[in-house]
């Protein structure tokens, strides 16, 4: 006769079964002193079990470490291509592309808006030719690529597909993520082109296209990172991000998509700031809230559509221009919080980023920092090692409570719809107002000395402004890129370009048609990013934010 199992024993047994069938990395799961440790401690639900508070996979980092994905991009496509190869040689396992401001805004390098910005904050991409150089010599069937772009995301995705096709790699083989999270642009990052509703139509088209053609691609990375950088609290970051996720889900369902099919390809992107336990509570709460809403509210039944899988980046805004080398310590602590919070991939900031784009040395130190967390701290031996700790569990609940309050507010704004509530919150200045208030509150506390920022308002000795080696982007980058763009424009078949652009405008006017194929056709004949953006602006108009302080 067997004894009846307690509910927790049942959970543990189910978890064990899954854990035992997982492939594990070939390393000893023991402490530095040789003490063997269990894969998880405490009570269930265990990692890989709904609502996934403790992690999305049963074996977590014992099977696979997070992807060490370093964000890089500067100068010309060739410059960034070299940095990509350097990162891959150094043990980076995924690429992440930073575009320059004109590219992010759908402008070409020869636009009057682009003056002084070409190749400065990221790589300049005008046409397919630049994209070909960016990924030259990199096997796109083997790497996973993340592209941080939103307003003109459809054009950049089209270019990526076209480059791969030229290399003999089909769209279905491509793995990666495109940020494509336009809602947070109106709330925080401000890199929008069209008004919210047409932007949502483009995103829905991309979701449909990738669902059909690119099974390994994440068509939207719902991002709280920029919301936090703009000054929000941790709970606001959590709530605004997940609410944006709900809004995309509502839009896709309204467009006839199956919640299980696209839900499993959504991913998230969070900030890891310096308040260690608040961050860990935030990550844990994110998984729990997302799973519950997807299941209970949106009717997902596929487990994969309930998983909040996320990328994390350490907090750029926490880095100080004073004594920049101490930022290495901040990044280490933030990286550890991300690991203990169960992230799927991680970018660690370089210590010099409060001053300029990172130098190669600084980027290497940042990558090494997460390698130390992964391989030396033992934090990867045990899934959710802090789960069950009273403070951590309380913090997780508290983050969830604050987030639910914000969801209620958005539902009120939208008469029961988070999507409509989000549109309304963008229009009435709710999001930007809340973020600006939080940013100002924090700044005042720092200014009054109530919060100590090491090196800024305390412990200020030891700064050496002369001893800095910063990455400078030469003005030649701009000249080179302009010449290159001019050459392409002369060499391409203008008639094909004109026809392809006209087609995009036509498709844009018909919500029943998908924009992606028309955009792919246009990039293949070397239409520029700005020409493609303009071809949609004709139909969609542009967005101008009300300036509120």
């Amino acid at each position, binding site marked *: 006769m067997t004894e009846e199992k307690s509910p927790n024993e049942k959970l543990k047994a189910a978890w064990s079964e899954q854990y035992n069938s997982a492939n594990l990395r070939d390393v000893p799961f023991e402490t530095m002193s040789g003490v063997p440790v269990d894969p998880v401690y405490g009570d269930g639900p265990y990692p890989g079990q709904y609502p996934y508070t403790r992690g999305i996979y049963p074996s977590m980092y014992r099977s696979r470490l997070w992807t060490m994905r370093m964000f890089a991009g500067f100068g010309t496509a060739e410059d960034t291509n070299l940095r990509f190869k350097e990162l891959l040689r150094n043990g980076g396992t995924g690429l992440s592309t930073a575009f320059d401001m004109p590219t992010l805004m759908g402008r070409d390098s020869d636009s009057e808006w682009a003056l002084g910005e070409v190749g*400065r904050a990221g790589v300049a991409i005008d046409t397919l030719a630049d994209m070909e150089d960016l990924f030259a010599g990199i096997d796109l069937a083997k790497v996973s690529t993340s592209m941080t772009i939103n307003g003109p995301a459809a054009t950049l995705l089209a270019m990526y597909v076209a480059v791969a096709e030229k290399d003999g790699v089909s769209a279905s083989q491509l793995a990666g993520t495109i940020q494509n999270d336009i809602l947070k642009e109106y709330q925080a990052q401000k890199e929008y082109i069209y008004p919210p509703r047409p932007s949502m139509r483009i995103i829905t088209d991309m979701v449909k296209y990738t669902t059909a053609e690119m099974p390994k691609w994440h068509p939207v990375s719902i991002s709280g990172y920029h919301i936090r950088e703009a000054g929000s609290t941790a709970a606001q970051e959590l709530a605004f991000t997940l609410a944006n996720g709900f809004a995309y889900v509502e839009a896709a369902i309204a467009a006839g998509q199956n919640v299980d099919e696209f839900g499993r390809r959504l991913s998230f992107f969070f900030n890891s700031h310096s308040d260690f336990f608040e961050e860990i509570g935030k990550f844990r709460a994110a998984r729990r809230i997302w799973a519950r809403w997807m299941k209970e509210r949106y009717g997902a039944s596929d487990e994969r559509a309930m998983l909040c899988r996320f990328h994390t980046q350490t907090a750029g805004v926490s880095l100080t221009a004073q004594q920049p080398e101490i930022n290495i310590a901040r990044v280490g602590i933030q990286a550890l919080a991300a690991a203990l919070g169960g992230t799927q991939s991680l970018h660690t900031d370089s210590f010099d980023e409060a001053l300029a784009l990172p130098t190669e040395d600084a980027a290497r130190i940042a990558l090494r920092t997460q390698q130390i967390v992964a391989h030396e701290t033992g934090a990867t031996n045990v899934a959710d090692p802090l789960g069950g700790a009273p403070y951590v569990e309380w913090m997780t609940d508290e983050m969830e409570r604050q987030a639910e309050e914000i969801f209620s507010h958005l539902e009120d704004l939208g008469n029961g719809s988070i999507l409509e509530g989000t549109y309304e919150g963008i229009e009435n200045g709710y999001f930007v107002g809340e973020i*600006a208030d939080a940013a100002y509150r924090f700044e005042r506390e720092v200014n009054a000395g109530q919060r100590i920022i090491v090196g800024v308002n305390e412990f200020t000795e030891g700064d050496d402004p002369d001893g*800095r080696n910063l990455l400078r982007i030469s003005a030649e980058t701009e000249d080179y890129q302009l010449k290159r763009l001019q050459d392409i424009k002369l060499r391409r078949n203008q008639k094909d370009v004109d026809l392809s652009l006209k087609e995009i405008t036509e498709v844009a006017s018909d919500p029943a048609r998908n924009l992606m194929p028309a955009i792919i056709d246009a990039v293949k004949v070397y239409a520029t990013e700005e020409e493609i953006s303009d071809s949609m602006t004709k139909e969609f108009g542009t967005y101008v934010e009300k300036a509120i302080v």
Partner: protein
Amino acid sequence: MADKKIRILLAKLGLDGHDRGIKIVARILRDAGMEVIYLGLRQTTGSIVAAAEEEDADAIGLSMHNAGHLTLGPKMVDAISGAGLDIPLVIGGIVPDEDVADLLSSGVTSVIGPGASAEEVVAIVNGAIATRERK
């Protein structure tokens, strides 16, 4: 007129969308008793000069986070003087120390570096306005 409030025009020039800093600076200056006119994002030198004239601004403040300051700073200086105006220009944001001298010699009145306290921000703006009054 001793009791006239200082009027400062703040704007983001060009494509750079980082507006956390400028919004904080706007509130700091407002709390210090100044009249702040914030034009918002994606302004051109032309829109800034026109607004400065119309608003009778005592100073113009730009915030730059995309390393475009060495191009855009002098361009703004030229636009101000090209319009026949004599308005001090303050630039804040991510400006490396080694670029400050270049900006100042190109005609930018003052630079506010990262990590400046509220008092420093107010003092720099007041100082910039005072340079004009001394002329």
